[in-house]
């Protein structure tokens, strides 16, 4: 098969090679090539392809990749690569190489729209190319701009396809193209029914295109493939506007029209017997206008009754652009089925987003849950520990170019640095304030502003990049609707890991036992031989260290700035408080509630994310009023303030 095709290609070349070379053709259309436009480049591309020259696909690919340069004096086009100030030129037809200074040459930069058209022109060459990436590119081009003419070559190429992924993609595209462009209506309906099983954006696009409608208005319903008929009074103003556009009615007389009429017909300080000074109410103006209209000086007023009369005497409808009712019926049924599946998938996706948000909140708050929840210490600088962790990641990436290794180093380093910072803070400040919780809040706030400004002084206010390793790029795509980025999945598992770790430390280790003992009764714990100072220090360090790790994770998915901590601090406190202080499960519940709630509100009002945040905070305020101890409330003596 392949031999046959290349033989044909060879024959074609031989036939037309002497006709002309590509450069001449390019020169004939030099202006179009140098400054191409999506709408006008089509015929030029057709001409190029029609020559059948073997260098055409190469030229098109290079052109699309911005590797074609034009000599500014002679206008000759070259394929070129730039190194420093010199260009290595390749002749388009002969392939002869030469070098020249870049100064006299201009790079051609076809824009995205033109590149897409070039992509379509390349399809016929790439579809049977031995290189799989080229074949994949061809399929992408088809998916972007499906055309009827592509169906036959695509079907022809299916047989020779040995790559299973590409083969599946080709079959998929054949179904999509058949649904719209197949000759036989039965084939189309079969393809449409096949599409009903898919939730991809592409297949929905095809169904929607088949079901495309155009609005119409007439005195009686025409004989066409009618999609819907409207009640004229459902949206009277819009329908009336449609009537006016179709020249079937006169436009409404607007207040501006009335005002203009008044101004145009002032006679002796009066408009239709009304003195101008009295025209400061709508009623007076209406009277004056009626007088003018009765005299025939202005067109009669078109008001609501006239509008409604016009609406009642017409029909408003949508017609399918597709004439065959069988096809539209099949497409409608398929789309209904797809939409049910999509709605389900969207719910699942929303759930995933909520889960992801909850895990981010959880990660940001879990350190706080230890320091605030278990120790009862308010640490307003917690957000700044998150920031320190993120900057640690950034600094390590500066020195370690391999992102995977950098992250692996950054996580423990961030923990170590924030652990140390937390311990230092506990030693120097917090231990002096254990019995004055409100003042802990203020002192740690002082530290927070100092740290934030310090970060600004060191790193600047510009956001810094913290780039995830390549294996965390991209998303886990279950379908076109349900997908979640790997980085969020990683954060989710990190959150789970810390949940397990902290539960383990608190419930199963000596340290955890001591922490709980000191939390419940420091005096008694001390008399049992536990050193409360040491325990407090370690607990605080642990909470801070986790904040540092959270910082690396948050920096990876969002941004690293000196103010990033402040974005999370209030949210984190609320997570802890809503969940119930002194309980890791409570923090989990709080994070889930807040994440879920935020996504839920966003879903109701997708155009305004800010409103979602406001309502969520209001909800939390109310929630705490009615359940001040949080979702998971401690019972007994530990619950005392």
């Amino acid at each position, binding site marked *: 098969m392949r031999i046959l095709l290349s033989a044909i290609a060879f024959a074609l070349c031989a036939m037309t090679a002497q006709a002309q070379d590509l450069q001449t053709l390019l020169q004939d259309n030099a202006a179009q090539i140098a400054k191409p436009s999506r709408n006008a480049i089509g015929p030029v591309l057709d001409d190029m392809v029609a020559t059948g020259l073997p260098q055409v696909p190469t030229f098109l690919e290079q052109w699309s990749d911005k590797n074609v340069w034009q000599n500014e004096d002679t206008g000759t086009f070259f394929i070129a690569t730039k190194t420093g100030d010199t260009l290595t030129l390749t002749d388009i037809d002969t392939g002869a190489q030469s070098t020249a200074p870049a100064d006299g040459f201009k790079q051609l930069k076809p824009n995205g729209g033109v590149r897409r058209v070039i992509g379509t022109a390349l399809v016929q060459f790439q579809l049977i190319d031995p290189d799989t990436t080229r074949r994949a590119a061809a399929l992408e081009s088809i998916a972007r701009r499906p055309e009827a003419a592509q169906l036959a070559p695509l079907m022809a190429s299916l047989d020779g396809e040995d790559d299973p992924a590409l083969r599946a993609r080709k079959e998929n595209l054949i179904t999509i193209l058949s649904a719209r462009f197949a000759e036989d209506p039965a084939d189309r309906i079969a393809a449409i029914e096949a599409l009903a099983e898919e939730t991809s954006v592409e297949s929905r696009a095809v169904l929607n295109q088949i079901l495309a409608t155009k609005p119409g208005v007439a005195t009686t319903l025409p004989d066409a493939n009618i999609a819907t008929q409207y009640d004229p009074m459902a949206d009277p103003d819009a329908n009336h506007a449609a009537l006016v556009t179709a020249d079937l009615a006169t436009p409404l007389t607007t*207040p501006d029209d009335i005002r203009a009429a008044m101004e145009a017909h*002032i006679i002796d300080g009066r408009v239709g017997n009304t003195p101008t000074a009295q025209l400061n109410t709508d009623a007076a103006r209406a009277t004056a206008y009626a007088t003018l209209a009765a005299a025939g000086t202005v067109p009669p007023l078109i008001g609501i009754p006239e509008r409604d009369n016009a609406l009642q005497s017409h029909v408003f409808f949508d017609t399918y652009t597709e004439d065959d009712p069988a096809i539209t019926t099949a497409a409608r049924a398929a789309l209904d089925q797809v939409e049910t599946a999509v709605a389900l998938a969207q719910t699942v996706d929303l759930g995933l987003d909520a889960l992801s948000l909850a895990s981010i909140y959880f990660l940001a708050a879990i350190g706080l849950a230890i320091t605030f929840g278990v120790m009862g210490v308010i640490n307003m600088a917690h957000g700044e520990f998150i920031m320190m962790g993120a900057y640690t990641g950034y600094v390590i990436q500066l020195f370690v170019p391999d992102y995977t290794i950098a992250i692996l180093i950054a996580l423990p380093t961030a923990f170590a640095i924030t652990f140390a910072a937390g311990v230092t803070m506990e030693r120097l400040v917090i231990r002096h*304030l254990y019995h004055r*919780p409100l003042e802990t809040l203020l002192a740690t706030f002082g530290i927070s*502003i100092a740290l934030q400004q310090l970060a600004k002084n060191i790193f600047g206010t510009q956001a810094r990049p913290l780039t995830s390793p390549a294996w965390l790029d991209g998303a886990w795509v279950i379908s076109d609707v349900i997908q979640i980025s790997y980085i969020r999945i990683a954060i989710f598992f990190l959150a789970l890991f810390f949940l397990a770790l902290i539960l383990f430390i608190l419930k199963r280790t000596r340290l955890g036992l001591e922490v709980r003992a000191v939390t419940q009764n420091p005096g008694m714990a001390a008399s049992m031989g536990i050193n409360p100072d040491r325990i407090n220090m370690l607990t605080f360090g642990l909470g801070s260290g986790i904040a540092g790790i959270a910082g690396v994770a948050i920096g990876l998915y969002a941004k690293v700035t000196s103010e990033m901590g402040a974005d999370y601090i209030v949210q984190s406190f609320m997570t802890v408080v809503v969940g119930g202080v002194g309980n890791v499960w409570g923090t989990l519940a709080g994070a889930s509630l807040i994440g879920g709630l935020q996504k839920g509100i966003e879903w109701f009002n997708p155009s305004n994310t*800010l409103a979602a945040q406001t309502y969520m905070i209001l909800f939390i305020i109310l929630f705490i009023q009615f359940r001040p101890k949080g979702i998971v409330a401690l019972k007994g003596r530990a619950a005392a303030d």
Partner: protein
Amino acid sequence: MHNTFIARNPSVLWFLAALGLFTFGVTILSEATGLGLISTSFVKTLGKTLCLCLIAIAMDVVWGYCGILSLGHFAFFGIGGYAIGMWLMYARTEAIVLQNFSAQTIPATPQEISDAIGNQIFGVVGSSDFPAIWSFADSLVLQLAMVVLIPGLLALVFGWLAFRSRVTGVYLSILTQAMTLALSLYLFQNDSGLRGNNGLSGLQNIPGFEQTPQATISIVFFLASAFALGAGYLFFAWVISGKMGSVVQGIRDNEARVRFLGYHVESYKLFIFTITAVVSGIAGALYYPQAGIINPGEIAPIASIYLAVWVAIGGRGRLYGAVIGAAFVSLLSSWFTGGGAPDINLGFYTIQWTDWWLVLLGLSFVVVTLYFPKGIGGLFDYLVRKPS
């Protein structure tokens, strides 16, 4: 009664005398009188500082005396500013619109006037509908009432819910912080009808006084702020001096004990919380016409935390401490960030105060909390006791 009150609190008299002297001095030296030794922009700064002192004493009463660390009092301050700002904007725009319509042959209908005003005020933020929240903006009296009523009502409802549920201590602090965060996020939305992030601007132009120079307007507002501060000081000094003051301070020191003594603790707290909110609203209404613009950034949680910082540095539990803290820190802050402080060259590194001032402030705050819980006001104790 009044005599005894003053007699029991000589510091009130001292404070009022100092304030009067200061006000008199600034007025004499200002551009309005022609001496011009103090520029109009500095008079505005001083006037604004007096308003900050007023909210600081409110904060001191609610925190230093009643023990409620509210991190949301700037919300009330902002509401006061918005309430007066709405009238200022509306009235100024109405004058422009009416003048424009008066040049036309056909007199305008009320609807046309309202549309034109809406278009002027909201056109710059991409809308022209008059939100319902502006219904009373045409009436100075109603908007002035709102300066007092809205902060009062909000504080009343919020406080009633919170105190009823026995939300205390740090929980309450975080809740108040959430309240001001929610309010500022709400106002950041354009849909809130208060021009979103742009806020209300041009507030220094007082309708009806378009021809009066800013030098005069600034001194009038300065005097009004000074009067409000004096009155507020007197009022709060009176509130905290009587039996009520003792109960309130008792609540601060041991809430449970006061409750067992038979006092209805919640009512006292609610009263203090609400009146301080009202005073904050008044302070805001005086502040923003001097600042010229109010926007949601003004009531971000950080502002309320700074308020606590001022009071703590000045010295809690004494009204003059709050005034000193607010005036001292806010003026020092603008001196440092305004580039007034000379840079320190360490040879290898130059300390620029615009960059390092916040670090200094943050750390000094830690030091004050740790070692000088009485703040700057504590120095007075030292001075007063030493000679005796």
